[in-house]
């Protein structure tokens, strides 16, 4: 028998023939080369059989010549299946659209949660995030990665010391540590102010307490500057003394700087490659060929496509090749000295309070040998040297 699967792909019809002379009709069909099969008798004078779809048109002329009436009962096979599929394609399209929508929504930013910031900083952070494009409803593919958000935030916002950015599902969680924590009201206990380090007093602003030293006095570390005990003898009272005592202090800074140094800089040339990875297979989308740089730094940005809470093995990869160049810097002797002084100043400033001032500097010693500059500078700094020292009750009496 024939393989009916092939017929299935081309389509077949079930035909019902009824009337007199069915046998003659069937003979006529077979003789004219029409294949029929599964001939079944259904009661008197009626027969059903199957035939190819392409023969369905030929059958009519044969039927007209005989006394039979024919009727097409069922259409089966691929052509009809296709037709039905096309008719019901709305469902398939709907299902596809559903998956696509879920996929899109799974890869959107749905929330930004900021913890540990006061309202003002929070507003600032939100504005900064807005500028970067981190917004509700944005696709995660077009948003910078977590590290760069973190970097940009901590660079651009003065008020924060550190920010931890974490992407959990569709929500960015930001953990903020502010530089100046909301100021706690000070409840000072009675105290003296004493000197932090060896200095010569230059200026004094005493808000509360009794100053015991004067300008131009030379003080030693731990020496009492402002007493917290006020009032006449016998009627003393202890107060939390408050104030600033500026003293001239001295620092010595030593810097060693090589005359010749090499370091790496980016030339500014870069090449970006976009690709989509499925499992281990990487399909380039845009940016082909080799970077063309001899030395480069590769920054890879990978965005995993998520579906609901699962991560698909599909991801979008963005590679940036940045050209790197080696630069050799050679200082002349004079330049080297200037640079070393500059460095020394910077070093001192970074170790001091904000309100400290450099009053004067004096190069103690400088030498150039073995390709290195060694310089020692003495700095005169004016800074607040007052430090609180609590008055213990037993002491004061």
């Amino acid at each position, binding site marked *: *028998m*024939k393989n009916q699967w092939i017929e299935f792909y081309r389509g077949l019809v079930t035909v019902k023939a009824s009337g007199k002379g*069915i*046998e*003659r009709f*069937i*003979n006529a069909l*077979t*003789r004219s*080369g029409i*294949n*029929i*099969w*599964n*001939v*079944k*008798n259904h009661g008197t004078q009626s*027969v059903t*059989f199957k035939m190819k779809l392409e023969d369905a048109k030929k059958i009519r002329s044969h039927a007209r010549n005989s006394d039979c009436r024919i009727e097409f009962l069922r259409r089966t096979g691929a052509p009809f299946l296709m037709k039905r599929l096309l008719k019901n394609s709305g469902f398939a399209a709907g299902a596809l659209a559903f998956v696509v929508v879920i996929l899109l929504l799974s890869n959107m930013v749905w929330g930004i949660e900021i913890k540990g910031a006061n309202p003002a900083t929070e507003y600032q952070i939100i504005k900064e995030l807005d500028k970067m494009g981190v917004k509700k409803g944005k696709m995660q593919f077009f948003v910078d990665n977590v590290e760069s958000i973190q970097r940009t935030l901590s660079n651009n916002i003065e008020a924060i010391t550190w920010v931890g950015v974490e992407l959990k599902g569709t929500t960015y969680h930001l953990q903020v540590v502010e530089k100046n924590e909301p100021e706690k009201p000070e409840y000072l206990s009675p105290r003296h102010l004493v000197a932090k380090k060896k200095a010569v007093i230059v200026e004094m602003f005493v808000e509360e307490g009794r100053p015991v030293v004067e300008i131009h006095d030379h003080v030693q570390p731990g020496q009492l500057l402002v007493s917290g005990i006020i009032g006449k003898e016998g009627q003393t009272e202890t107060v939390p003394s408050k104030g600033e005592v500026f003293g001239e202090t001295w620092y010595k800074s030593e810097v060693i700087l090589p005359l010749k140094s090499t370091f790496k800089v980016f030339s500014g040339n870069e090449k970006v490659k976009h690709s989509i990875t499925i499992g281990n297979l990487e399909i380039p989308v845009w940016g082909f060929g080799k970077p063309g740089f001899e030395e480069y730094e590769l920054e890879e940005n990978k965005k995993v496509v998520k579906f609901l809470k699962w991560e698909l093995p599909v991801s979008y990869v963005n590679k940036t090749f940045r050209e790197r160049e080696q630069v050799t810097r050679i200082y002349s002797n004079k330049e080297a000295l200037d640079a070393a002084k500059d460095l020394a100043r910077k070093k001192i400033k970074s170790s001091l309070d904000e309100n400290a001032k450099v009053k004067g500097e004096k190069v103690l010693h400088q030498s150039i040998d073995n390709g290195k500059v060694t310089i020692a500078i003495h700095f005169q700094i004016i800074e607040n040297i007052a430090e609180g020292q609590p008055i213990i009750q037993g002491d004061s009496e």
Partner: protein
Amino acid sequence: MAKKWGQFVRGWMTKNMELPQDVMMDLPRITMIGQIHIYIENHRGLLAFSDKELRLLLKQGQLLIRGKAFVIKTILPEEILLEGKIDSVTYITDTD
């Protein structure tokens, strides 16, 4: 007279030249598989078909098949495959 002579020649040839009879003499070749299948080659057309009976025209005479639940699985101009429960296969020949 000529027809009888032609038949005689064919009969003689098949006997002496060992040729298959169905080819030479237009006889039906019937293959049966138990009671369920019957395969008939060299028929000359359908005469009657119902689910209990199938009558086929042959070169000479007719073939009558009786049984139950007949279904013609395939029908070609000279071949037919019948399925069902076959009870009897009878040759009907005109008396000549």
